């Protein structure tokens, strides 16, 4: 797809996102990408009221659970417009990341499960986190990145979760957001999902936390958004 057509698609998607999430899905799916539609889930604050754009502080890591009630995702306000990006996987396949949403197109969301070896934020620890421009990583000196401290995989949230460094072989998957009349919705995912692996390897943990694997696999219908620093007892940065 040439740049002209690509821009046309993105701008039509931006308009579409104001109207109908089904349009987003169809637009993404029509590119042969990996968009997967899930339940349309409203993002809400801890008190249950709809999350507004102005509630999302720039460069602060928020967590919510989508597309399943047990699968964590990060919500970030990158405080700048982030445009669409072409992503290529190691097998040569490609997909288009549509960029940020919201009035400034600065809001992005990603799976918080590391695509390398599935580290994710628990209530006790978060080994994977976003590093703001004010607080770069002491180990890698990078900022504006999502970094996993277990094996130092580094992802770029302004470029569709692209792998910048470390052993991860593919980007963290995107949680596709839709901004409609001042409200934010999660509508699906884009990229390589690791949810089945997540359910397989954390079966025992999920059973403990949710009562059963089946319950952990329930689809999210509404997503409570919390700051990671409030969700995890310890955010382990590196």
């Amino acid at each position, binding site marked *: 797809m040439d740049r002209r057509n690509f821009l046309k698609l993105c701008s039509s998607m931006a308009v579409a996102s104001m109207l109908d999430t089904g349009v987003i899905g169809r637009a993404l799916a029509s590119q042969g990408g990996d968009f997967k539609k899930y339940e349309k889930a409203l993002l809400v604050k801890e008190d249950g009221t709809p999350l507004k754009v102005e509630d999302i502080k720039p460069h602060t890591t928020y967590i919510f659970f989508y597309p399943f009630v047990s699968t964590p995702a990060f919500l970030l306000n990158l405080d700048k417009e982030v445009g669409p990006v072409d992503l*290529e996987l190691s097998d040569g396949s490609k997909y288009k990341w549509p960029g940020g949403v919201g009035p400034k197109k600065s809001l992005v969301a990603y799976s918080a499960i590391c695509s*390398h070896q599935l580290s994710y934020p628990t209530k006790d620890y978060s*080994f994977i986190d976003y590093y703001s421009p004010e607080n770069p990583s002491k180990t890698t000196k990078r900022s504006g990145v999502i970094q996993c401290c*277990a*094996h130092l995989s580094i992802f770029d949230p302004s470029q569709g979760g692209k792998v910048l460094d470390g052993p991860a072989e593919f980007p963290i998957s995107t949680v596709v957001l839709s901004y409609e009349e001042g409200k934010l919705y999660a509508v699906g995912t884009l990229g390589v999902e690791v949810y089945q692996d997540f359910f397989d390897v954390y079966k025992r943990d999920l059973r403990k936390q949710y009562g059963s694997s089946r319950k952990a696999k329930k689809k999210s219908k509404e997503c409570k958004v919390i700051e990671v620093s409030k969700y995890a007892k310890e955010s382990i940065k*590196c």
Partner: protein
Amino acid sequence: MQRKVSSVNRRQFLLGSGGLAVASVSASSFPVVAKPVSKSSLMPSPKGNRVVIVGGGWGGITAAKYVKKDNPNAEVILIEKNHMFISCPMSNHFLFGLLDYESLCYPYNTLRVKHDVKVINDRVLDIDLRSKKVVLPEGFIEWDYLILSLGIEYDIDDKPFYKDSLEFFPPGFTPGSEHLYLKRFIEEFEGKDIVLTVPKMPYRCPPAPYERAAMLLSYIRSEGLKAHLYFIDANPNPPVLKDGFLEAYKDFYKSEADYLTSTQVKDIDVAKKVVKTDKGDIKFDFASIIPPMRAPKLLERIGLLKRGQKWVKVNPLTFESEVKNVFVIGDSASTYLPKSGYAAHSEAKVVAKIVAGRIANRKIKGRIIQHGICYAMVNLKAAMMLEIEFIYDANLKKVKPVKREDNTWKVSTAKRYYEWAKGVWRDMFN
């Protein structure tokens, strides 16, 4: 009569030709001692897609899973003598009570059930590089691609005193009973003087002996023991995480330890409990003697390791040996990465890509990463971290090395350490 090996010049060896294809000699020109393989075939002849992997440790398991993942049409066979995987990484945690033994043990069944890998638990008696056969007690298996991930052996033939010490004072550098035995010694210890020795580099897992010394000293304090450690190091300094370890021995544990650098073990009297070094004799009550290490002698017998060599020479980008489609990964090979379980795991992913690609007749594009990250405890609570990475750009044909050390002692790094291990085990056994 042996035949001469074709020469491979350095440039070809380092860069390969076109993508990652290394200029290898064919198996027919390789010097294998001629010996007929009389046993019968255990499997039908391969059809061009059979990958036989010998050794079910961190490297072999990863290679088996990822060859199959990268190319589901591959027929993958893993041969491992043990029925259960036991991790050597994290075994110091076990020795000092930070991890249960069961945390180190995993079955091979996920490879069979989820990834359709045929796992054969048996001994390898021989490998015939010319006829491409791995010989087991009941018969042989032919390969199209062979990946050897055999780990290490203790290099003790020319120093018989190490043989005695192995029985009395286990090194704990091969997984299993050595660790169980060593842990019992540590828990039962009531004496005064302890000796821990480190061989010259290279050996398996460079920070491990230094970590063990630091954890032992921390354990001595926490148990209120009146013990003293003589830490005898054949190297001039810790080869990795030097600043953090030296701070531990020279400042933090100064009164409880003597750190003797560049000191060679000359003899060990196991009956009198004396280590003789080039700087004097040290009497001890308990010791953990870590002997020098080498690639297993099987590799010498089959011709991949020349007489006098301790590690197999491979293309450091592809891990292919001088025999085409025969790869050696992990501790047995001489590579860019230090010898460690994680390095073997990372190298296995590279080899899996190459082998899966060759079966499918496709070239590798983009970046190939050899990644080494390891952690080391400095006491029973805090750890340090080291990362080494070699990024090969297959398009530009360039290697970019990255090295990062964090010598600061942190409790949070110790938590990352455990997550590091759990992550790799998740990957290997899922």
